[in-house]
């Protein structure tokens, strides 16, 4: 579990307005903060991938790409891990409704793999009530 550790957490708080520009900006800020704490390439790869999936999902599926709707991003970055929260303005999402993309009959369906990747790389992934706030915890391996 990610804890504050020896150094105080680096906090990043961003309201995203425009998907392409703001997702890249968040990625740059997070990458800078984790690299400053010595996170390695594998950790940076996992975090970048999961943030991309989470933020794009929030814009595309949560806000349905509706102009004027925003996405709130919060990150607490610590020496031993990170806590990320992504909140959209949609009605909420039930991950149980996504078919298992690894089932043989679903392998050729081109969607539904983002959540699976987040669950693989993060130590905790939860959609908080009413399902429009995603909380992800990354635990650093040493």
């Amino acid at each position, binding site marked *: 579990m990610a804890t504050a550790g020896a150094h105080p957490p680096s906090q990043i708080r961003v309201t995203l307005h425009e998907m392409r520009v703001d997702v890249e900006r968040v990625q740059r800020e997070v990458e800078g903060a984790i690299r400053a704490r010595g996170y390695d390439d594998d950790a940076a*790869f996992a975090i970048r*991938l999961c943030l*991309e999936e989470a933020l794009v999902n929030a814009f595309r599926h949560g806000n349905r790409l509706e102009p004027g709707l925003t996405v709130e991003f919060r990150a607490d970055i610590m020496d031993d891990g990170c806590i990320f929260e992504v909140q959209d303005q949609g009605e909420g999402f039930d991950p149980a409704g996504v078919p298992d993309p690894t089932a043989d009959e679903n392998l050729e369906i*081109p969607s539904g*793999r983002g959540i699976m990747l987040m669950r*693989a790389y993060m130590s905790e992934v939860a959609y908080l009530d009413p399902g429009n706030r995603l909380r992800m915890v990354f635990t650093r391996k040493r």
Partner: protein
Amino acid sequence: MSAAKSQIRVRDEGGVHCVEFVERSIIDEAVIRQIGEELLKLVDTAATPTLVIDFTGVQHLSSAALGVLINVHNRVKSRSGQLRLCGIPKGIFEVFRITKLDRLFQTSDTVAQALESIG
């Protein structure tokens, strides 16, 4: 308006289209969409589509990019063609393994091995 820059490089190897990506990070939605359009055009304009897609140097890839590759796989299959992926870096291959797409795609370490595997 000028045409968008191509997102893939294609060369012919004895009738096989060998494809490389221009970007090292296949994560931007517009880039992914364009890659999909260019690959599907390549498939649709070949009599029997035969493609080798080389991932050497690719550093990042999202689930949307996987979706494009699945669409290309399905289109190649529907036209009785062949598709091979090769040169997939370790971290990217882990993404294929997690999503079980290593079972869907035929992969090789190098372009030469991919070409050899095509009957």
